[in-house]
């Protein structure tokens, strides 16, 4: 067969006037086809062509903390049944879960403690085990079970600082402001300083005394510089509460305060979420897109990134909407309730399913009652014209003296408990 070159001809001159924008449209369509092919090809399991293909990058693999956790787990594997080794694993894993915002480390901590959580005849469960177990339960939002464990720990040791702070955080989440206040006060009796002041200020800020809370924290940050330098996590927490309170008050220092918190730890998931809420409320979505671009594995951060991408009409929004939907679905299949507030916001503002949003906001309200929980309940209630939900939210807002406008804009401090 001979291959003959033949000339291809286009339309004759003047046959059709060239339309501007056609080329762009064509490129768009070709890009669309590319997306389809890529989606179809990479959705299915595949065998990579090359042994050197990097499939996964382990986050933070070389950091001291990650290596310490590995070493602790190896030590425990070598000495199963050794309580100090198990406690070391649990502490390192809880620490790692806070740093990365990855719940799998809580599962690691819980696995290390599991053999010591069932009392053997004649032996008590160690209070250290109970305390760490309570922190894990708090992090997975099993608040009643966590409070039970904390009650046992505090009965034996009423001045246990970690137990008091953990209980304060849970009580704050559940809008038990008097109880939270008492825990912070008990903590301050033995350990006055930035940590105690942060605890008290976080309660004051939700009690309708935000200006006083902000003044107190500003003073405390200035007078406890040494404690802040020695405990970056405490410093970051204090700076975040100050930033959120300033944002809620419309104080111009809010932005600088968030930057101060991020300067201590630029990857703290809690600070990133709070600052993103601040930026979204001030029509600065483009900055959120930059800030959170590399934090897609954390669900609450992915939600904020997606909201920002929708606001600036970024091309990745469609993918992230689908990712979030898939993660909430997996979470539902797993029987989890950790991110119901986030899912309610997703259903309300992104997929526009107000009825599902209200059901989630109501279920969430049964578990946690922070300003942000009241805000989503109120917003979902209004979208469904559900008087009961609106009344419940209004009652909570009136009781605490929250600023409803700031609250609905997402500018309310939330505790570390969620």
């Amino acid at each position: 067969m001979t291959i003959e070159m033949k000339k291809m001809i286009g339309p004759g001159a003047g046959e059709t006037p060239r339309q501007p924008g056609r080329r762009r449209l064509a490129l768009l369509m070709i890009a669309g086809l590319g997306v389809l092919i890529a989606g179809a090809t990479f959705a299915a399991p595949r065998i990579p062509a090359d042994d050197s293909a990097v499939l996964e990058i382990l986050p933070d693999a070389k950091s001291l903390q990650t290596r310490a956790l590995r070493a602790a787990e190896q030590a425990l594997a070598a000495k199963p049944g050794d309580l100090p080794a198990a406690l070391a694993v649990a502490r390192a894993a809880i620490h790692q879960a806070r740093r990365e915002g990855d719940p799998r480390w809580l599962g690691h901590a819980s696995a290390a403690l599991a053999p010591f959580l069932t009392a053997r005849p004649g032996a008590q469960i160690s209070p250290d085990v109970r305390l760490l177990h309570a922190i894990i339960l708090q992090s997975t939002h099993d608040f009643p079970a966590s409070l039970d464990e904390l009650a046992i720990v505090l009965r034996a040791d009423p001045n246990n600082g970690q137990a008091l702070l953990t209980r304060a955080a849970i009580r704050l989440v559940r809008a038990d402001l008097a109880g939270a206040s008492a825990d912070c006060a008990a903590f301050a009796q033995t350990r006055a300083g930035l940590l105690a002041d942060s605890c008290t200020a976080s309660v004051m800020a939700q009690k309708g005394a935000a200006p006083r809370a902000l003044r107190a924290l500003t003073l405390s940050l200035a007078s406890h510089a040494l404690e802040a330098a020695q405990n970056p996590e405490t410093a970051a927490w204090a700076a975040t509460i100050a930033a959120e309170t300033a944002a809620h008050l419309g104080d111009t220092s809010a932005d600088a305060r968030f930057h101060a918190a991020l300067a201590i730890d630029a990857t703290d998931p809690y600070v990133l979420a709070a600052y993103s809420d601040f930026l979204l409320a001030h029509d600065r979505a483009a900055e959120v897109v930059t800030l959170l671009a590399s934090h897609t594995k954390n669900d609450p951060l992915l939600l904020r990134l997606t909201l920002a991408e929708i606001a600036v009409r970024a091309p990745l929004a469609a993918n992230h909407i689908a990712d979030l939907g898939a993660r909430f679905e997996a979470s539902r299949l797993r029987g989890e309730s950790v991110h119901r507030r986030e899912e309610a916001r997703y259903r309300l503002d992104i997929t526009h399913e107000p009825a599902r949003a209200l059901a989630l906001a109501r279920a969430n309200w049964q578990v946690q009652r922070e300003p942000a929980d009241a805000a989503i309940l109120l917003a979902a209630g209004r979208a469904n014209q559900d008087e009961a939900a609106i009344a419940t939210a209004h009652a909570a807002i009136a009781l605490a003296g929250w600023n409803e406008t700031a609250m609905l804009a997402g500018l309310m401090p939330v505790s570390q408990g969620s």
Partner: protein
Amino acid sequence: MKRFLTTIVFCLIFLATPLRAHAHSASTAYLRLLPRDATVAVQLSVALRDLDYAVGLDTNGDGRITWGEVRARETAIDAYALSHLAIAADGAGCPPGPVTHLTDQLSDGAYAVLQFNAACSGKPHRLRIDYSLLFDQDTLHRGLINIVTSNGANHAGVVSPTTRSLSLDLSASEGGAAFFDTVESFCVTGIDHLLTGIDHMLFITMLLIPAVFVRKRGADGRETQVAANNFRTVFVESLKVLSAFTLAHATTLTLSVLRIVYIPERLSESGIALTIVLTALDNIFHFMPARRWPLAFAFGLVHGLGFASALGPLDLPPVALGVALVAFNLGLEMAQITIAAVVLPLGFALRQTLFYPRRVVPGISAAVGLLALAWFTDRAAGLGLMPF
């Protein structure tokens, strides 16, 4: 028209996104079981991050897990997975066969995918899964189990540290709707095969691209092509091409499934690559007859052999086999029409521009031709270098 096309583009993006599988940032593994007679096809997907903890994958400790590192640990992965996962039918264990290792990218990271067949002593009535992967290292780990029976019925379940086994009565799910379930299941298999088999998709695209032009032989004997006047011409031409293709692949598909003809996979797969090379070349150089449908028929015979290997040997009673084959072909046909619905309006809208026939058609054809040439070399020589 413009609005209509924009709509298509949007549909495309949304079609592509739901294909991404479920994932959550807490540790989750996905177990999919397909019971077929005495065999249960098993697919287990475990996050590489979790496997790294369980068996150690990042052997050089650089924080990056490569495919080579996964492959080097295949034995350890199999030993770990198969000692923590047991499948039993009616009280008797179904021992696992050889494991194929793959990988998948889900929304929360990369997963190791293990595929194997578990051989039961008979067709299972009651299936039991015992699962204990990763529970000793992570109490928040969950296994999401999905069982798809031969009639297409779907059963989902979760295993956790407190509930480590799942039982399912398969006979209960096989009821009167079995006929339609078979139709649906094979239809979906057909659609899936065409849309995820990028080679078939590219072939259909190559076949259809020139349908918006009409080739004419001028007085000087030189062949030229002009844009079609109306959509009807395009539609009729495409209909002929697709029908010829379908008729041909249905024929060889049936012959192979009935085992009347047998062609080694290596031969049929390289044949498919060759048909793409030739069709792509013809889009650029026009060396084959202007009428496309005989070409589509001839090449369709080759593609049917490829479809047969996707369907595998079917031990079904004659009526069910007929239904399955018709449904599979219908599925393929629907997928082809979907591709046509993308390629044709696109080409039709752009047929009178200069750049579509001069740049886009030869450009895409050349790219596809080169890719197919690589496939051909890879498949004919049995190198196994190409990813799909």
